[in-house]
Each structure stands twice: as structure tokens, then as C-alpha cells.
């Protein structure tokens, strides 16, 4: 499904997308918290692009590790440790695989989800990125188990992630900075769930 070149290309696309959506993500964050999500993520992914351009990468795991470490050291806030841990856990799950099958990709995402849960001491239903990550992973695993092709699997994932974002509008935040306003966060979509969905959309566009 993916070799190093494809993954590099996708990470570049994700960086561009986050950069384009910087103000939108910041507006979402402003509505319920402190309004830095877009700015921070964009700064982080710009740094990722720069780091990757000169890096010596043998296997996908190296690449994910570098992305994770760069995000941790440049994003800050909550998103830095969360996305950083997610990417580093993907690296751990892949070890020395030279190429990613769809199954490897799902296994790596499983590691990412576990990492975010552990680092954020969080689970679904708390209006966080997990509300997009968990249902999209489950949808992809189900589609994969049914023997669907890469395109159908990723579509199922993106659709579930989008539904997850919609779901975050209906609930109050109980984790993260948005939790401080509790009920007043209802009606707003979660910026982290949104940025995750954007990433998955870029994966789908590039692979399919």
C-alpha cells in the first residue's frame, strides 16, 4: 500500500493541508478554548517538512519517529505530546517493516490510538481527537475484515472520522482546555478531531 516515498508525499500533503486550514482550526479552538490549535499544528508540520527534507530514512518507522519527535518539540500545548506520541507509537508498531500493507497501517493506527489514550488519560465521548480516531479505526478494521479493498477501507475510515467530528458538536468537553467551559462547549466541533480527520483525508486522497 505505501512505501517511504508515498508516506513522505502524504506527510507533505498533510503539512500543506494543516497550513491551509490554520485559521479555520484556530477559529474552532477559539470558540471553546484558547485558539492556538491551528497555529501550533502548522508550526509543527512546517518543522516536520524541513526535518524530512534532509533526513536519512531507511524504513517507514524512522519516518514516523522523526515526525513524532519533531511534533513533540515544536507544537507545544496538548496537541504536541498527543500527536507526537501518536506518531512515535506508529513507529513502534512498525519496527523494521520496509513497506506498509493496509494491515500494517491499521496496526500502526491502533498504536497511535493507544498512545493518545495513555498520554491524555482520555477515552471517547470526552470531545477530543479520540472521537474521530477511535470510530475511524474501528470502521477501517471492520471494512478490512470484510475483505474490502484499500479504497473502500480508507473511505469507511474518513466517513467515520467525519461522523466523529459531527458527534463532538453534540457533547460537552470533559477533557482538555475546552472542559473548563463544560456545557458551553456543546454546539462546537472539536479542533483535534477535526485536524485528525484532515490528516486521514489526505491519506485517502494520496493512496486511492
Amino acid at each position, binding site marked *: 500500500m505505501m512505501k517511504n516515498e508515498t508516506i513522505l508525499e502524504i506527510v507533505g500533503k498533510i503539512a500543506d493541508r494543516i497550513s491551509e486550514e490554520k485559521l479555520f482550526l484556530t477559529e474552532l479552538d477559539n470558540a471553546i478554548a484558547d*485558539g492556538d490549535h491551528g497555529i501550533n499544528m502548522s508550526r509543527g508540520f512546517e518543522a516536520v517538512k524541513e526535518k524530512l527534507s534532509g533526513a536519512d530514512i531507511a524504513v517507514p518507522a524512522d519516518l514516523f519517529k522523526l515526525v513524532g519527535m519533531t511534533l513533540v518539540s515544536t507544537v507545544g500545548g*496538548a496537541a504536541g505530546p498527543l500527536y507526537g506520541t501518536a506518531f512515535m507509537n506508529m513507529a513502534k508498531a512498525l519496527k523494521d517493516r520496509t513497506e506498509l500493507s493496509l494491515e500494517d497501517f491499521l496496526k500502526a493506527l491502533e498504536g497511535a490510538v493507544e498512545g493518545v489514550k495513555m498520554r491524555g488519560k482520555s477515552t471517547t465521548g470526552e470531545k477530543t481527537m479520540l472521537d474521530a480516531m477511535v470510530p475511524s479505526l474501528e470502521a477501517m478494521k471492520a471494512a478490512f475484515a470484510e475483505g474490502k479493498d484499500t479504497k473502500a477501507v480508507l473511505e469507511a475510515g474518513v466517513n467515520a472520522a467525519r461522523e466523529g467530528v459531527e458527534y463532538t458538536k453534540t457533547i460537552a468537553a470533559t477533557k482538555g482546555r475546552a472542559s473548563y467551559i463544560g456545557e458551553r462547549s456543546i454546539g462546537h466541533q472539536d479542533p483535534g478531531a477535526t485536524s485528525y480527520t484532515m490528516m486521514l483525508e489526505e491519506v485517502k486522497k494520496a493512496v486511492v
Partner: protein
Amino acid sequence: MKKFINLPENCENEMIQGLVKAFPGYVKKLDCGNVIVRSEKKRNKVALISGGGSGHEPAHAGYVGTGMLDCAVPGAVFTSPTPDQIYEGIKAIATPEGVLMIIKNYTGDIMNFEMAQEMAEMDDIKVAGVVVDDDVAVQNSTWTTGRRGVAGTIFVHKIAGAMAETGASLEEVERVAKETIANVRTMGVALTPCTVPAAGTPGFSIGEDELEMGIGIHGEPGVNRQKMKPVNEIIDELLDHILADLDFAGSEVAVMLNSSGGTPLMELYIAYDHLADVLAENNVKVYRSYVGEYMTSLEMQGLSVTLLRLNDERKALLNAAADTIAFKEFGGRS
């Protein structure tokens, strides 16, 4: 957006450079990044580190110095610093006695400080952490992340810092820090939003005749939006929340009336005129008062009231000498 800046993306770096140039007798910056330490490392004591987003100046770099912090780690504006930055700070100030991290209760701050602690512990540095959550505006329940850490943090810097300076153990410094946290309460209010330089537009909008009660120090929404009213009534409402939350009656307190950055001293003194009277009416004895800019939110017009309940130990530690850019205590007062 109209600000005295150059490029928005350079704000944090240029601010730190300016601070270090202005106060070389107090602080210096590490070469590896935006990490502020005392100009002369103090040994034979527990070292204190704090940090958080920039935009709250003088917090926290203004409190680095004798009797308070050993290191402050500023992140981007309103964004927690990163683990590698905090880790560099911990390494720079570490002593065999250990390092205490003073963290404000925000998800990002806690995660970044925890990651830094894990990294430092791999180097066999003894690290403990306390989390400040003094804001009574937000619910404290198992269903939320808990209360926010705001201006009460400065009292934790002062009291834990004074304890550390006596040569007390990490456990003892941690204990007084925790007891300070348990006895400090704050609530804030804002009349205007503030603009994060990199965002370029205000964090929220509010009518000319409105106020946001219970505002957070990053411009996070508060408990409710109200019509503007005289400051005496605003102070009454803030104190209602604070006094209902912890029993201050009959106690001696330290009180801090803090400007969010855009409130002139004139208005703070007007507010304090009434604040002092209401405290007296409620049998709360003001032992020491602090009025000014301690924990700001860029140019926001706003203020916060903090009360710290004192006992003999906290009184002595509050009185101990401190010499930092933004907080000075000559010591020896009673």
C-alpha cells in the same frame, strides 16, 4: 491588530532576548532555546522550575531569582512549552536535592511537564511536581480536567521558593507547595479580549457594554456573559464565589489584585478600595496585599482576585527575602 512588535512569529524570541538584556543581573537564557535560569546557579537546595505559555508576563520569567524560581520555561504565546525545552531547564538547574516542577492545571502543560520529568528521571534526576488549580470559576468535578491554574501560582512560587531557599528537602518543599495550593483561590473577569500575535484577531468578541465573568488567563470563556456594572458589584460577585468556596472567615490572608494587562492601576486601586472593605466585613484579615500586574493575558482589560489563607509557616515563608524581576520582598517584616 496593532501591537509594538516586529514579526508575529518572532515575538517570543525577541521578548526573551529583551528581558535578558534588561535584567542580566537576575536571569540568563540557555543557548539551547527559550529557557530562563538565574544568572548564578544556586546550589545546595531544591531547584524550582515553572513555565507555561508566553503572554502572561511577568509570569513566569519575572519570578526567577533569589527566594523564588530557579528556572522558567516559556512556550509560544498561550501554549505550553515543549518537553525537550523543560528537560533542558531541569538539567540546567538540577541539584542532588532534587527539582520541583510547579505546573498550572492545563492538559497540555501537564503532559509536557510529565514527558520532561520522564526524560529527566532517565538521567537519575530527582523530580517531583505540583499542579496549581486555584480558579474557582470552573467546576471541580471528576468529569472535568479540574480547575484552571491562574494567579495563585505566584504565591506557590513565593512560598515553595522560600522553603527551598532554607535548604529543606524536596518532600518538605513539595508539602508546603501543596498546602499553599490547597489554601489559595482566585477568580477573574474581563472587559475585553486579547489578540495572540500569531492569530492576528481577538480570541473572542464582547459587546462594549458587556463583561465576561470567570474569564481564563488565555481568554477562555468564563462562567457567563453579563451587562457591564460598577466595579464594586463586580468585586462583590468575585468575592461571593471565592468566599463560598473556602472558609476564609477569621483567617489572615494574603490578597492579590492582579491586572490582566490592560487594566490601569487607577482602576485596580478603585477596585481595592471596595475589596478591602468587603474582606473586613467578612472578618477576613488582610495580612499582606499585592496590587499590580502578576499574571497577565497580553493586553486584556481584566482583573483577578486571589486570596491565600495563611498559617504561621506560610506567613514566615511569605515574609522571607525574595529578589526577582517582578517580585521583591526585603524580609524581616512581621
